[in-house]
Structure formats: C-alpha cells, structure tokens
C-alpha cells in the first residue's frame, strides 16, 4: 500500500508547520532545542511546548542512497537520504536534494529547503516537507 496514501489528510495538516518550515520546540526548563516537537523534553523530562523556528542549517552526520524505494517514492529513486545534525543539536532524518555532481560526505554543510515529498496517487493531495541540500554559494 502506498505509504503516503495510507496517511490521513488530518496528519498532513497537523504536521504542516514542522514539515514545511522545521518548526520544533525549545524546552522552557533546560533550553534544549527539540525536533520533532513532543510533549516531554527528551533531555530533562519536563513539559516541552514552546515553539522554536530552527535555522535549517546543519551538517551530514551519516548518509546512504536508496535504490529500492518504498512505494510512493519509487518515481524519485535513486535518492540520497541522510541523518543531519542541526546546528541547534537535534538529529533529523531527511532526503538530500540538489546534489548534482557533488559527492556527499560526512560533514557536508547543508541547509533546509521545502520540497515535494510525494503525491497521494494521481488524484490525491501533494505532500510537501523539508529536505536538505548543500549550502548555496553566496552571491
């Protein structure tokens, strides 16, 4: 079954801010930055609920390439996937994009971009969310 199709419209809607813009949380007790947002701070165990806009910058912590993609993603394969260490601390798993001819390496500096993650078939909704790409050369 199509993974995207199996997700509810309400889930896409509920996750839109964290997916589109990397909005997580900052723990009001210990100031740990949290992504994805959750009820309890993973660091100090207290309530976490204050929204925090991550900068989107980070570096590749580990990476691989997906050749046998799960259904719903096969039209994009092969594609690189990485665990990214955000500059605020959390590790995030996401696709890499706009790699071009550059090799991906552990430590490659990356930035968040909002891209199309997939579509629920020909008629269903389009799903957008964060990916990471090598930092664009300035000017």
């Amino acid at each position, binding site marked *: 079954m199509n993974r995207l199709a199996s997700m509810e419209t309400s889930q896409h809607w509920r996750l839109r801010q964290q997916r589109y813009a990397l909005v997580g949380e900052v723990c009001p007790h210990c100031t740990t930055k949290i992504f994805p947002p959750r009820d309890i701070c993973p660091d100090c165990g207290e309530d976490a609920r204050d929204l925090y806009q991550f900068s989107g910058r980070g570096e590749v912590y580990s990476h691989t390439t997906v050749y046998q993609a799960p259904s719903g993603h096969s*039209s994009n394969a092969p594609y690189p996937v990485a665990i990214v260490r955000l500059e605020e601390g959390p590790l995030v798993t996401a696709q890499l994009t706009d790699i071009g001819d550059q090799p991906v390496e552990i430590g490659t500096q990356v930035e968040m971009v909002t891209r199309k993650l997939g579509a629920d078939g020909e008629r269903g909704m*389009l799903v*957008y969310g964060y990916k990471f790409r090598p930092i664009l050369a*300035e000017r």
Partner: protein
Amino acid sequence: MAETKILKPIREAGFAGYGAYIPQYRLPAKEVARVWTDGKGSLPINEKAVAGLDEDVITMSIEAARNALARAALDPTEIRAVWVGSESHPYAVKPTSTVVAEAIGATPHTQAADWEFACKAGTEAIQAAIGFVGSGMANYALAIGMDTAQGRPGDALEYTAGAGGAAFIIGPAEDAVCVIEGSYSYATDTPDFWRRANETYPEHGERFTGEPAYFSHIQTAAEFLMEATETTASDYRFAVFHQPNTKFPVRIAKSLGFEQEQIEAGLLVPDIGNTYAGSAMVGLTSILDVAEPGDRILMVSYGSGAGSDAFSLRATDLLPERREAAPGTLSYVKRRTEIDYATYARFRGKLVLK
C-alpha cells in the same frame, strides 16, 4: 492624456525585499534540436532551467519568498497578502498561495490568492500589491511570479519553456530598496497563446505572437509610462522586458531607444529560458543585485491574451546593504547541472509509466 492613466497610489510604495529562485538543472537547446531536428535550425537560447522531480511552483515560490523576507528583514506575520502568479499552479483547485504563506510563517492573518494571466500573472500581483499598500490597507504584501513552463515535445516552445521566478515584498517607500515612481497597465483581447482547461500543453499563434502581441503591447505600455513620468530611455540605467527568447527583448529594447548595455544585467533568458510569469521579475532581481542608489529601472512584462504592466523604479540607499542578506540571482544561474533529453523527459513527466 498619459498622466491620467498612470497608476499612482496615495501613499508611495516600493520593494522592501526581493528574492529569486532558479532550479539547477539545464537542458541545452541543442539537445532538443538533436532529438527533433537532427541538430539543424537556429536555436532561440543556449539552455533552459528545468525543475527537479521534487520541485514545483509551490516549492520554488517558498524559496524565493524566503530570500525576499531575508532581504526585507521582515517578520512574516507583518505580511497581509501572499499572491502567487503562475500558469503552472500544481493544483487546478487549491491555492498555491496558502501553502507558501504557511511555509514562510505568514498565516493566518493574511490574504492569499493565486493569479493567472499567462506570463504577466506575477506583475499583475505586483500592481494589486501596490494598491493594497498604497491605499494604506496593508503595510506589506508579497507578490510572486513563478513558473515551470509547459512545452509540447518537439514544439518551438520546448526549446525555451523554462523554470524559475521571483518574489517581491511591496511595502511603504521609506522602507524600500527600490521605490515605484509609477506604473501602468495595458490590456487587449489578443489571442496569441493559450491553454484550454485540462490540456497538458499550450497552443500558440506562430508568427502572430510577435507584432500584434509581444511588440505592440510592450511598446505601447513602455511609451505610455515614459510619457506620463516624463522620462526617456536615457533616464534609465537599466531596463528589463519579458523574455520569451533572446531576440524579442533585444529588439523591443532597441525599438524603445535602449542600448544593449541597459538590458544586459537583466537578460537571463539565454541561460535559463523563458520563465513565463517569472521572466521579467527574475530579470529585475538580477538588476537589483548590481544597481546603485539613485539608478532608475524600467520593467515591462508581457502576458499572452494579452497585456503588459510597466513600472518605473528607482533604487534607494537601502539597496546595497539589504541585497547581501540573500543569495544573488547569478548564484542560481551559475548553479548548473546539465541534463540530457531523456532525463528531461523523466523530470517533466513525459514518460508513459502505465
């Protein structure tokens, strides 16, 4: 009579910030010729920008808007309108603009709407935003022109139909990198290019797209605006026109009395193709990347169907510092991964998979 038809708001407006986006893939025109004409015939451009598999008008608009916000150093909740002009909105029904507004943090206290007028849908949104800000209804409004243009395989448009565009935040003149001295809109019913509902590719009127369409509308709009603002070509350091190919904007510039050096900075079509609703606007971003305070800039768009929006602009002292806050347009132009026709066909969904 021109001064009664020029558009001037009660409160002077300008661009608080601007941002470009161009995808990294490039399809050389000679590659299209290799497949369809045995490599023979003249080429209208060098190459065109092509959106990747995970890109569309929504994702491209989001990045351009983020660049514009960075330059304006504006809290996105200050924005009261998010307007996206395009002829490639990803949905037939469901706004591009609400996704863009949500992603940049402009929701929920905002207007949001999609605009449609072939290649001038973006400048139409700028005109409306000038009204929104210039009347005092809002302090800031975001107008975007962005496209992933369609061209039938083998058609003349396949060489040029590119991807890219730009976002502009319209705000009060005192907070602008560039003030809008006056604008003008000119529209007639001219059937030079269209795409019927549910059709994949557009139709065009061959040579009819030239004289009665592109040239007549831009010429008239530019002359009207220059008469009303009592300016001539030599008063402008830069000019940018809609760019369906390399030949048309070069010819209209000459016809209006502009020198090649005045249009060079904004002439991106040879390297990125025709970005439709984004074409004149992304050219303007490239000009703003190099303009100096006090420089005057003329921008005239053209949309099939048909109409032109003309703008007389003047760069301010805020421009040099603010433009450093986001990547320059040429950094997107130079970011280049060449693809062949087969990869292009895959990226653009031209392969039959079922």
